[in-house]
């Protein structure tokens, strides 16, 4: 019996209306992403990468078609259930880190666990272990404004993976980082993928990230142009 895909989409379309003009950002995307995959979606600007990522994460609803996360049809879920699903099953890493400035690094990372009602000690222990693993131990009490870009993005990665979601969606996670920091961050995510089996889906222009992809999906004008499966990604 085959495993249930982490993500399944069926003829997904997203059309934006602006001043009476329709823009088809995503056109008829059908795909499966299996648990533990390290998928990179690449393509030129405007190819629909971010929109597709938002559709996979339930941040926006498709104009037509269906999206399943872990067997849940996002198009059928109420606003409340969708929020619950995002909390339980999806992690996000954004280009601009998007940490909450009023919370410390630890509080940011544990936020989803806090919302899930995980006990204080268990939460702290989990986050501290993760911080250790991704090389930011000792920064727990710092506010985002006191962290470098690379450190902030690691905290964002910790926040995304700490709840062991079915899927982590990362939109241009290395775009604001220098080469060394990007490489280090990619190492972290590759290792998490290999050690924790976390499913990663990236939208990126970054060639280094594409090189690590286990599966590279190229988008052009909102549609999948190529979908190449490769060997497991290598941590450098």
């Amino acid at each position, binding site marked *: 019996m085959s495993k249930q895909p982490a993500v399944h989409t069926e003829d997904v379309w997203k059309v934006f209306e602006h001043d009476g003009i329709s823009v088809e950002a995503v056109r008829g995307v059908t795909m499966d992403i299996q648990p533990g995959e390290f998928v990179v979606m690449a393509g030129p600007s405007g190819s629909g990468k971010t929109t597709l990522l938002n559709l996979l994460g339930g941040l*926006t609803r498709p104009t037509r078609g269906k999206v399943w996360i872990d067997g849940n049809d996002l198009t059928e879920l109420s*606003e409340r259930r969708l929020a619950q699903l995002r909390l339980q099953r999806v992690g*996000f890493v954004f280009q601009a880190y*998007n940490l909450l*400035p009023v*919370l410390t690094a630890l509080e940011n990372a544990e936020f*989803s666990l806090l*919302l899930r009602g995980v006990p204080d000690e268990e939460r702290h222990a989990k986050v501290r272990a993760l911080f250790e693993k991704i090389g930011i131990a000792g920064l727990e009490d710092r506010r985002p404004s006191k962290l470098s870009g690379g450190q902030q993005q690691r905290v964002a990665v910790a926040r995304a993976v700490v709840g062991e979601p079915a899927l982590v969606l990362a*939109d241009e996670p290395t775009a604001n980082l220098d080469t060394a920091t990007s490489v280090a961050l990619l190492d972290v995510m590759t290792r998490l993928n290999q050690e924790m089996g976390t499913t990663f889906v990236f939208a990126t222009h970054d060639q280094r990230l594409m090189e690590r992809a286990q599966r590279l999906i190229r988008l052009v004008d909102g549609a999948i142009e190529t979908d190449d499966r490769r060997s497991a990604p290598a941590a450098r």
Partner: protein
Amino acid sequence: MTPRWLVLPRLSWRNVRRQWRRSLLTGTAMALGVAALVFSRTLGDGAHEDWIDSGVRMGSGHIAVQSPQFRASRKLEDRISAGDWEKVSAALEAPGVAPFVARVTPRLEVIGLANSPTSAVPVMIMGVDPASEAEFSQLGVEQRLVEGRYLEPGDRLHVYIGKRLAERLDLELGSRMVLSAQDVNGDIAGQLVRVVGIFQTGVPESDEGIVHVPLHTVQQWMGVEGDITTLSILLHSGWEVPRVLRRVRALVGEMTQGVSVLGWREAMPELDAAIKLDDFWGYVFNIVLFVIVALAIVNTILMSVLYRTREFGVLRALGLTKRETATVVFTEGLMLTGIAGVVGLLLGFGLVWLLFRNGLDYSGAIENDFTFSGVVLDTLVIPVFRWIQVVMSLGSIIAVGVLASLYPAYRATRIDVAEAMKFEA
């Protein structure tokens, strides 16, 4: 374990602190609004108490017992018999009433003419019991006594008149004058009296239009031995009027049908209207004040919501529902309002206590006596502190805070999560 519902207020509180300059500025505006409300309520209530106290003393008391027709007719035939007012006096001794009653005085009021060899002036002739009336109306107190003395229990053919009347009739202390009025039979009857004292209240109508004569003198003269037109009751506190009024009505109703028991608002509708009018303008002032405060809150929180569009997007992406996102914003408004409300209360009560606990004297601002609705207003206003003022002030600012936070909270729910991620503050 931190419950989920506690996560949201924690986030709200951090945000209030994060924009501390903005919070401080808005909080200060709100606190000043509350302080101004406290200021106007404590001194306003104090002024109203003074008006009521002056009004009821010079008028018919906190509670007036009269014949049901007397207020409209002012005729002698609409009087209370000796038997009835004795019953009412007995009712005032009841356990549920007596502790609230400070003074009781009987009056026989007759409209008549004050005549001297030079002129005649229409007056209200008040037959009063000198002992109880002296304590009640305080018309004979030092500040009001210009010459002579107030009536005394042994007096018979004596009269206590106002300064303007004395001037109009060219009378002085010891002068004789004739009071004439229609007696119980409808005949014009005259009574020669001697001036024993002259008063001045500052109210022209009182100083020219009221004369005090011993009660038994007026009763004999009018042929209504033992009867009165009004039994005036002064309570220890004007706040007790509704309660005591209910009890007295119940007790008197059981004893006699021949009298009606009126609260001061019914007995002195002009004073009641004057206070209501003053209250109305007070409320208008407060509403304008709070609309300004509400706009400040809306502005601050809405700016904060717009500035943090991306953050709200992140919160939603992390699993907060729309309602929870709105709760974060709403709670921020409530926290700001609550803190500012408490600070405003402390500031308002503190300032009034520190600066005006012995009274706010505005005599320097006015040249002559300040009269209003036939009452001389004391130019020294003593503030009144009551729990209801705390409840009202805090309640008002929280209501304003709740209303003013609703729209920004609603706006936070309208944020498109995917769009919010592109937002640059």
